[in-house]
């Protein structure tokens, strides 16, 4: 069968599966809708969390970034996994014990303030919306490349599917679909990796293949990559530091605490029956995530080697452009791969020197998607990768949309505007909020405000500098009061936005950068994407100083904090 038929078959049958699950797992109450009834087994929740967490960025972009950043790409590997240790020990069990539906609800109660709750809702919506745009874009790209339909059509099909299972089933439908999506995406990621590792090193385990010698040769894979990239003037793969050691430190820390502060991840831990389960569920989530995350560096390195060896089969001898392989032509059509014959000799001369380099563009994102084609794997493997990319994007989009919808219907509507609505009315309101969120996300996916690439990183910075510190102080301090928490969140998110906008424009509008006489990365050489940790430190400092000069929190707050620190009597998650 040809690639397109196979792609339709794989994508079509996975979509049918998601719809089947949606029909089976309909939500009957707000509890079903917000926290899947609170009865999800910790291993199942771990799997759903893994799919929720691993987005188009993890599936499509990350290995590509590692491919071109080498050692510097480690910030994503450590940053996006280390956050789960923080979640498991410092946040998830206590928030589960508290037993409510949303993150802003905890912040509002702990800091006894509706203002704090509204500030938290704004922070939540800012980080979730920026994040969801990237997912919608991923859906459109995967459709247009593999099924050869218009970008907009692909996006529309994706929206309809999410609409069905998220609006009907809420958290319950999303949870069970995410479990299926995890299975699809992990198979789609590991099968090509196993094939490629076997081809290159003879070892079927990519994690071991990365540390092995090349098949039939006496040289280690990593040493060979170092050799071929330095020959063309690139930095040595295995030691290429991202800007500076301090910058790598800050980047990793920002991603870790950003992960722990992302509301769509935190609410997944509200679905398990007990506090004990919240702890172990974080462990299971990380096991399922680690399968992909320890494979990714092997995929990145092997893709880089395959790409280099296709373009320059032996030292000094380049591929003839007219004899380029089919995948090269396919990706040229998308504009993600561009060749420019600068010296008119018909050879594809690739080098680190921008003046003579003829591979003018190799987009990070094509590395995972093109990898099976570059390695000449069978068509069904390529079709599987398409289904996997869609599973990764859809599962994350659904989780984000639920976080947005519940903040609107539960925190804003039920919590403030109309506290007297019945459960049935709230359930309907949350469905309407969800539908509106899907339409909004689709609109932004079609008309991305020109900054889609910068936005996912911004989401981590925002979560790291606003929500994470507020939750930490809410659990570990009895002294931080409402004035402190609000001032801290505003200061943290404010300074992070300021630094990012200074570099990338106000709300990413080109031409509004205002660095003035300052150099880029002026603050200790830290790049804007790594700035979240600085915002978090500002948040903690401001909150503690302000709390010290204002009135102590009421006695009831001390009781609340003591209550969440001990597991017994957690009961089930409730909205009351």
């Amino acid at each position: 069968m040809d690639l397109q038929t196979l792609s339709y078959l794989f994508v079509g049958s996975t979509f049918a599966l998601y719809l089947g699950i949606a029909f089976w797992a309909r939500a009957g109450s707000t509890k079903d809708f917000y926290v899947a009834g609170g009865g999800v087994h910790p291993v199942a929740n771990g799997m759903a969390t893994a799919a929720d967490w691993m987005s188009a960025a993890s599936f499509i972009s990350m290995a590509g970034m590692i491919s071109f950043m080498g050692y510097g790409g480690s910030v994503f590997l450590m940053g996006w996994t280390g956050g789960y240790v923080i979640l498991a020990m410092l946040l998830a069990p206590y928030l589960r014990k508290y037993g409510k539906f949303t993150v802003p609800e905890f912040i509002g109660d702990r800091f006894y303030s509706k203002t704090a709750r509204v500030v938290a809702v704004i922070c939540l919506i800012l980080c979730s919306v920026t994040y969801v745009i990237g997912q919608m874009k991923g859906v459109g790209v995967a459709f247009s490349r593999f099924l050869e339909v218009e970008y907009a059509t692909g996006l529309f099909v994706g929206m309809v599917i999410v609409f069905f299972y998220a609006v009907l089933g809420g958290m319950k439908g999303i949870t069970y679909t995410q479990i299926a999506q995890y299975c699809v995406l992990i198979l789609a990621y590991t099968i090509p990796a196993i094939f490629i590792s076997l081809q290159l090193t003879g070892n079927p385990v990519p994690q071991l293949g990365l540390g092995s010698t090349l098949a039939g040769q006496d040289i280690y894979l990593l040493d060979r990559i170092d050799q071929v990239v330095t020959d063309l003037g690139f930095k040595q793969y295995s030691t290429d530091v991202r800007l500076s050691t301090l910058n790598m430190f800050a980047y990793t820390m920002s991603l870790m605490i950003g992960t722990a502060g992302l509301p769509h991840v935190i609410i997944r831990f509200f679905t398990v029956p007990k506090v004990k389960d919240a702890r172990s569920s974080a462990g299971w989530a990380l096991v399922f995530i680690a399968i992909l995350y320890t494979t990714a560096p092997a995929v990145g390195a092997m893709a880089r080697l395959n790409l280099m060896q296709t373009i320059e089969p032996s030292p000094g001898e380049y591929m003839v452009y007219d004899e380029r392989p089919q995948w090269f032509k396919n990706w040229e059509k998308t504009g993600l791969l561009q060749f420019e014959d600068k010296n008119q000799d018909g050879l594809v001369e690739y080098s680190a020197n921008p003046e003579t380099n003829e591979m003018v563009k190799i987009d990070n994102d094509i590395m995972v998607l093109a990898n099976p084609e570059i390695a000449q794997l069978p068509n069904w493997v390529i079709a599987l990768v398409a289904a996997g990319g869609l599973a990764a994007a859809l599962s994350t989009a659904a989780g984000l949309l639920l976080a947005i919808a519940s903040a609107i219907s539960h925190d804003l509507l039920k919590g403030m505007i109309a506290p007297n609505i019945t459960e049935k009315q709230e359930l309907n309101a949350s469905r309407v909020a969800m539908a509106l969120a899907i339409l909004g996300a689709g609109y932004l996916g079609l008309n991305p405000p020109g900054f889609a690439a910068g936005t996912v990183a911004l989401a981590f910075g925002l979560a790291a500098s606003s929500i994470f510190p507020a939750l930490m102080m809410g659990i570990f301090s009895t002294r931080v009061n409402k004035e402190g928490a609000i001032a801290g969140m505003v200061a943290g998110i404010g300074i992070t936005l300021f630094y990012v906008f200074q570099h990338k424009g106000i709300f990413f509008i080109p031409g509004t950068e205002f660095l003035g006489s300052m150099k880029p990365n002026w603050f200790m050489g830290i790049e804007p994407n790594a700035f979240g940790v600085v915002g978090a430190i500002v948040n903690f400092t401001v909150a503690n100083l302000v709390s010290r000069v204002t009135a102590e929190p009421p006695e009831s707050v001390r009781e609340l904090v003591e209550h969440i620190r001990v597991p017994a009597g957690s009961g089930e998650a409730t909205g009351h």
Partner: protein
Amino acid sequence: MSRLNEQQAKEYWRRNVSLMVKLMVIWFVVSFGCGILLFDVLNTIQIGGYKLGFWFAQQGSIYVFVVLIFYYARKMAALDKEFGVEED
């Protein structure tokens, strides 16, 4: 289910925090320590095709994270039982 008196609640929290601190130190050492700050030093050691610093940054730290979470979950379950605050 039983309610802890103030003394017991303090002791339970103290032991939880002390376990947490120990494990967070390991968390910091394997990622920020071995993977970033001590990268060059550890890279002088080679295991198979991996330089040790590089291995910690792209593989080892993640494996350790998984072990840390399960160890914490198990220890805390035992602590809950000891203080009689586990859920039924």
